[in-house]
């Protein structure tokens, strides 16, 4: 007869091995892609003009970084994203909470929101530039506009979906309007609201790049577009990598923030 402990130990070892294999697979796919790319590009099977080898992109990245060009672009884009994100999120939360709490306001506002929401903010850029000029403000407004909608809708839905039992508890124990807002509506809506903010963050990144392609002299979007125009594609790839990196970084930061803000989930 076999030792049951030994059996389970072996089973556990097999499970561990499988897990390690999967970790390797996760790491291997990007490495494989880069290796194949490098090879095809160096042997000119792929046109190195369009698909420069990854190693040369890395050296371009380094040159741009030390020359201070890249930090400037990054700084400009991040400032725009940050300001636009705040300018969209804060009114989104406030208006969303109000719409969620007051049904007449909901009835009044919802046709406006529903009509404006499907229009990509980028399509409104000409209008935004006419009203706010071609400077920084119009870019911040463009981002704010695209961040606002997911935040306002999620916040309103978050308030609306609060279990009516909690509303009953608040009423029964005599919560006034201010306490209801701060202790029930806001924290109750927070998880769904945070999902909206996550979405807003993704859209903000999307919008800034597109906006900078159309109308800017600095920024990551400008870097991509200008290098395409002069057909020097290495800086373009650097821009693409940066966007991917910041998208990942922002979503990690927001997830961390969510854990801090919603410890009760």
């Amino acid at each position, binding site marked *: 007869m076999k030792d049951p402990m030994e059996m389970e130990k072996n089973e556990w070892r097999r499970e561990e091995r499988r897990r390690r294999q999967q970790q390797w697979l996760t790491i291997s796919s990007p490495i494989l892609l880069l290796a194949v790319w490098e090879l095809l590009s160096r042997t000119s099977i792929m046109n190195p003009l369009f698909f420069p080898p990854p190693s040369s992109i890395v050296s371009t990245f380094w040159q741009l970084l030390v020359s201070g060009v890249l930090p400037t672009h990054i700084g400009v884009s991040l400032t725009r994203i940050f300001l636009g994100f705040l300018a969209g999120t804060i009114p989104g939360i406030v208006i969303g909470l109000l719409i969620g709490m007051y049904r007449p306001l909901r009835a009044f506002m919802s046709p406006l929101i529903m009509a404006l929401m499907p229009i990509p903010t980028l399509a409104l850029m000409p209008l935004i530039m006419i009203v706010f000029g071609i400077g920084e403000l119009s870019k911040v407004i463009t981002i704010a506009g695209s961040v606002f909608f997911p935040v306002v809708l999620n916040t309103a839905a978050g308030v609306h979906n609060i*279990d009516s*039992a*909690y509303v*009953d*508890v*608040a*009423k*029964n*124990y*005599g*919560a*006034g309007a201010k*306490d209801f807002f701060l*202790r*029930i509506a806001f*924290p*109750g809506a*927070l998880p769904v609201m945070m999902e909206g903010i996550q979405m807003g963050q993704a859209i903000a990144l999307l919008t800034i790049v597109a906006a900078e392609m159309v109308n800017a002299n600095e920024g990551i979007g400008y870097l991509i577009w200008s290098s395409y125009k002069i057909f020097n594609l290495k800086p373009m790839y650097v821009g693409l990598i940066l966007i991917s990196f910041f998208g990942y970084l922002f979503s990690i930061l927001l997830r961390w923030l969510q854990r801090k803000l*919603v*410890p*009760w*989930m």
Partner: protein
Amino acid sequence: MNKDTKISIKNLTKVFYSRHRQVTALHDISLSVKDGEFVCLVGPSGCGKTTLLRILAQLELPSAGEFTIRASDSNKPLQSMIFQEHGIIPWMTVRENVAFGLKMRKAPPKQIKERVDEYIEKVGLAPFANLYPKSLSGGMKQRVCIARAFANDPEILLMDEPFAALDEQNKFLLQEELLNIWEETKKTVLFITHSIDEALMLSDRVVLLSAHPGQVADMIHIDLPRPRNMEMIRSNPKTAEWFVRIWTHLQYEVQKSRKETEGKGRVR
């Protein structure tokens, strides 16, 4: 109003009105409850017992009639409700949940702390005071709700099937704990249940309601000595008789409502 009457309900009627449906949930209910009395409302589903409680809890307005809760102290809230489920707010810790009522009525911080500590201790949740409800079991959650209601020190307590979702063992435990706290504080309690055992175990008086429309059908004084336990309830011949009386009433009501729906040729 009699001097020792705590709750007086007079000719209370509640109608729910919409275009397609008009339902008389409560019809001309009159009831008075003495100070310190523990009254259980028992009835079939649809008899409006929850509606009655929600009216007393000021979560709904009556369509006609009135009720009064006699106040002994103008600083105390008139009533606090213990809900069936979801009564505990998930984004507040145990301590914050228990303190909720006192905070809402702006009690002095020192008093809040004392009362909250006292009742968290009484329901045995002191080690869990700073946890969020997600890590509590169903029984512990209902203990939080009980502590919150008692800590708020209301004139009367309203309980809407607070133990219905618990398993049998937890239910007995919580019934006993509730009785212990109740005997210390001597609060007037209006308690909804559909469990006959629970009604016999807890109450001084059982009020039987009938459905469609909700009306008072019968009343039984449960004059068993206290403190009570389940063995007593099960072995006493008197309680056996009461059990059958309540059981028969509920059976009759269920049959009646079945005939009504069949008579209308539809099943809802």
